[in-house]
């Protein structure tokens, strides 16, 4: 039996594990953790086997589909893009689950934890495997739900409950855009077929969607005076969804707060997997973006800006996990930036960006797990209370150092020597340079370079503040158990080596994502639709350009070293509430105030209170007024009945007289 036929098990096994663990986990060993671990391990094996098969024949993608209801289907598609994602997600998820065995061992709700993470993994795998946009959206939402549940895992903490809500709501804004995108897309398809959808074809399958790109891009609507193609609208709406899920500006606000969940959750969801769903979405629908270069530019700018913007905040955070959270946002920004270069480099944009995504998953998971290890041992997340942790936790320190180097992108250009982050990030920066050369627009490139400097600065600041120097408080920790350090070490190996080993193969593998049995899209053709040319020839940039990212990385290291290790500058003067720049950064550009207090509370809640007033006072007031008025009239009229019989007689007689006159008048009028 071919392994492909088992593909459906990949998301199903973790889902089953969720059911079993959720309902029966409490009575099992370690909260039933072994069931999800086993399930994910099998999924991981299947994924890797399929990926290996696929590496041989990239055209023979796995595609299975069944009818769902109405005009919709459920299906599985494993092409190179999905394959690498699958392997990465199952693998990282597996490691993190194993790590959590130790990390969560004392938590009373651990069976719930493992159930939810299993569900999360299933949902994420569902996102990756979907062969149609709607199924992708469904799993996408489930991922959001799991994130909500896991961020709010310690629900008794008000801050955790609030963070969970914020995460769900913020991503929901993006989701609505995504859904709108699907709706607009469907109506576009509907129009293409003139209202007669062909029988037996599921129009929301990617293959069908991509086939209709030319027609969609030919449809134009006018919005606010601009003539925009339908395709641009759809892709921008899809990107809106990605912005929410992948924490891009301005919907990134939930991600730092999401650190309220257990650290393993942060590692799993908010670093390695879930947040990359947005990037994956853009990559998955990349042919559509290719047909709409305007949308790609937006992707690039948003990504680039986010990369820079988030890293500025990373510098001033004192919470170890928050630094990493901003780092995640920033790195996701890089990936978007990379994708946004598609209008120049074509499929290579997907390659570099996905490459960074995979590498980032390894080193960011590692960073979080190391941080978790530190927190587990030290009992605080505030770096100001740490210091000198490296001495008591050597393995953690070393793995953390590797991860930091990878994040900062240390390596030697032109060779295969370097951390994995180096290869992928450099590749992105190189493509931005290509873009700049080609279009004369240097802004994305500048974003990338400056962000790289800041990245290096904040991550080494974290390293110095946490692991070096003397303990600033009396915490008394110890090295974590093996069940935690072994996953760390495995991840460290990947963080260090994966990039260098797979660099070339990876790109080639992804290059053919959209050219196979299931879907065949010609990038050149799309470029024609979008009115631009594709450029080939990355890697032929001037030496200076190749070295610049490394140089700024080292510069960042030096800056941190001087300030946080050597303490050449007295930080207390800068770190002060009177310093407006620091204040701005520390308060995260007042996003909380803007999003929560202004938009959520003042405007939305205010509007709803006005509605409540209308309901109670005006609508109900009218209704109650009618009833009260009637009763009052009744009370008045009944007094006419005085009880004196002559008055009754008078009424009769007057009635007769008046009736005669009235009738006379009416009859005469008639």
């Amino acid at each position, binding site marked *: 039996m071919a392994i492909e036929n088992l593909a459906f098990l990949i998301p199903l096994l973790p889902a089953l594990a969720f059911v079993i663990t959720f309902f029966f986990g409490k009575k099992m060993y370690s909260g039933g953790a072994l069931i999800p671990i086993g399930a994910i391990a099998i999924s991981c094996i299947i994924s890797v086997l399929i990926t290996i098969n696929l590496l041989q024949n990239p055209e023979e993608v796995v595609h299975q589909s069944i009818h769902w209801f109405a005009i919709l289907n459920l299906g599985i598609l494993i092409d190179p893009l999905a394959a690498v994602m699958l392997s990465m997600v199952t693998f990282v998820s597996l490691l993190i689950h194993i790590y959590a065995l130790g990390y969560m061992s004392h938590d009373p709700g651990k069976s719930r934890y493992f159930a939810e993470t299993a569900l999360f993994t299933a949902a994420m795998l569902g996102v990756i495997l979907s062969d149609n946009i709607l199924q992708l959206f469904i799993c996408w939402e489930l991922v959001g739900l799991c994130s909500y549940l896991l961020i709010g895992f310690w629900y*008794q903490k008000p801050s955790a409950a609030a963070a969970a809500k914020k995460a769900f709501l913020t991503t*929901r804004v993006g989701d609505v855009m995504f859904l709108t995108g699907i709706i607009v897309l469907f109506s576009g398809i509907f129009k293409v077929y003139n209202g007669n959808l062909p029988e037996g074809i599921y129009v929301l399958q990617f293959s069908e969607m991509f086939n209709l790109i030319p027609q969609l891009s030919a449809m134009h609507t006018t919005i606010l005076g601009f003539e925009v193609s339908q395709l641009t609208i759809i892709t921008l709406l899809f990107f809106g969804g990605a912005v929410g899920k992948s924490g891009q500006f301005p919907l990134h606000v939930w991600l730092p707060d999401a650190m309220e969940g257990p650290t393993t959750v942060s590692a799993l969801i908010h670093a390695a997997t879930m947040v990359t769903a947005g990037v994956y979405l853009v990559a998955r629908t990349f042919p559509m973006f290719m047909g709409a270069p305007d949308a790609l530019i937006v992707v690039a700018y948003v990504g680039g800006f986010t990369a820079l913007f988030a890293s500025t905040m990373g510098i001033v955070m004192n919470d170890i996990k928050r630094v990493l959270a901003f780092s995640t946002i920033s790195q996701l920004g890089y990936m978007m930036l990379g994708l946004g270069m598609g209008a120049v480099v074509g499929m290579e944009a997907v390659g570099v960006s996905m490459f960074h995504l995979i590498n980032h998953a390894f080193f960011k998971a590692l960073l979080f797990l190391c941080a978790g290890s530190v927190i587990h041992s030290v009992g605080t997340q505030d770096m100001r209370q740490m210091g000198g942790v490296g001495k008591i936790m050597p393995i953690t320190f070393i793995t953390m150092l590797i991860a930091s180097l990878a994040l900062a992108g240390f390596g030697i250009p032109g060779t295969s020597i370097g951390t994995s982050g180096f290869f992928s990030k450099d590749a992105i920066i190189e493509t931005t340079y290509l873009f700049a050369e080609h279009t004369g627009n240097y802004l994305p490139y500048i974003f990338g370079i400056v962000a790289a400097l800041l990245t290096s600065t904040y991550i080494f600041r974290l390293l110095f503040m946490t692991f070096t120097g003397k303990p600033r408080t009396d915490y008394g920790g110890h090295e974590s158990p093996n069940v935690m350090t072994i996953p760390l070490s495995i991840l460290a190996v990947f963080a260090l080596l994966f990039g260098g080993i797979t660099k070339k193969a990876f790109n080639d593998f992804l290059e053919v994502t959209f050219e196979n049995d299931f879907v065949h899209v010609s990038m050149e053709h799309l470029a024609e639709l979008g009115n631009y040319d594709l450029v080939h020839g990355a890697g032929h940039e001037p030496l200076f350009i190749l070295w610049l990212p490394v140089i700024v990385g080292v510069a960042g290291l030096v800056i941190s070293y001087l300030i946080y290790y050597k303490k050449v500058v007295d930080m207390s003067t800068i770190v002060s509430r009177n310093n407006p720049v620091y204040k701005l950064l520390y308060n995260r550009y007042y996003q909380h105030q803007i999003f929560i207090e202004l938009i959520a509370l003042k405007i939305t809640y205010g509007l*709803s209170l006005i509605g409540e007033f209308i309901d109670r006072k005006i609508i109900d007031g009218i209704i109650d007024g009618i009833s009260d008025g009637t009763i009052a009239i009744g009370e008045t009229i009944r007094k006419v009945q005085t009880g004196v019989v002559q008055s009754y007689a008078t009424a009769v007689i007057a009635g007769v007289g008046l009736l005669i006159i009235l009738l006379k008048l009416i009859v005469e009028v008639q």
Partner: protein
Amino acid sequence: MISMPIVSLMILVPLIGAVLTLFSKTKEQTRIIALVSSLAPLVGALYMIMNFDSSTPAMQFVESFDWVPSLGILYKVGVDGIALPLVLLAAIVVPATIIYSWGEDKQPNQFFALILALEAGVMGVFTSLDFFLFYIFWELTLIPMYFLISIWGGPRKDYAAIKFFIYTHVASLVMLLGIFALYFAAWAQSGIPSFDIPYLLEQFQFLENTVLRDSIFLALLFGFLVKMPAVPFHTWLPDAHVEAPTAGSVLLAAVLLKMGGYGLFRVMLPMLPFTGSPKLMISILAFIGVLSILYGAMLALAQTDLKKMVAYSSISHMGYVTLGAAALVPLSVSGAMFQQFSHGLITCLLFMSCGSIQHIAGTRIIADLGGLAQKMPKLTVLMLFGFMASLGLPGLSGFIAEFLVLTFAYLTLPGYVLLALLGIVVTAGYHLWAMQRSMFGVLNEKLGHLHDITNYETISMGILALLVLYFGLNPSPVLDMMTTNAEQIVSLMALAGV
């Protein structure tokens, strides 16, 4: 084969059950009789579904005989793809409610009898094919509900019950006016007096007078919209819900409101193409739908009472029904029908959650709650499930309905749909905010001793949750029935040349 009068039995069995329950002696006996006689319609509904031919929009299982021949009144019942899912819904919700209310101590025999009487009325509304009969059942549902609110209700039950009663009664009467007008106009037209619904709907298009047609349409529409309820005719609903006992709220939201939507599909849509200005009517419907969605969601956000919030969420969700119906695209119409079905299940779950909280914690004011999840994990899971379903989480039935409505309504009413999409965020907002403040966070010590929900409550809510999940993953069983009828309804538009 002489077929069993299955539809009549589904009306009659609960009614007989109600009488038996009323006169039963012990609490135990009462509950068993109630459960058995409410399960009988469920068996009937399942039987009908199994033998249902979803490839035809025609009425099936029809029973008909003359009732008042001098006025052309028939006793005629039957089901089609519009009615059967709702019959099924009622047949599911009522037993669930009875199981949920297993521990009811206050006059249980009357309580269960009223629930069963309500079921009979609702079954009658969904199956009758004669306006006279339809109206009788329509009004009959009012009385048990009035009693449920008035006897087992909360502190302001008097106000709420009478408001519910009179408000909806006025609407019904306006609807009755419309029925009269239609009846006589058709009589004058064809010379045959008849209250037969399909016949009258068919005759409607031949009426010469445009103003008459529009007035009939609007009068009937008003009756149904108040029942749904649609903004701005909704204010009876929150009051009724807040004061009603849990079982009452459940039935009110899950079944009674559906009568309004049912009327929309059964009566209004087939008429709509033949009104004087179908475009205008569609705009009115769509506007009311979107207004309900947004306004209901906004108001839900402002509520301090959990149950009231759910009540407003019902208004918001029923807005999708109106919107989907107005779009007149086959799948948007069947999406709207599915929304009725799905909302019935989901809202049932939500009101049960609210009821349990009220019952155990003694209050539903969100600000007075907090941290209940620590003491009531089962309830929290079920309630969270319900909330997620309600905010349209994919994989659950609410999403299917909302997706179909939004996607297909966009084809004809893009502007309205875009506005409605805004509501989704607000919907998520109030659900999550309420969840955060009531179930999560620090346990409010003032609440005293708390325990988790009983097994009966868990079972009934669990069954509902499973159904929500089932129909979320596999909507075809009910959706296919609806689609045939939806297509037929929409085809009338073409017939009218609109």
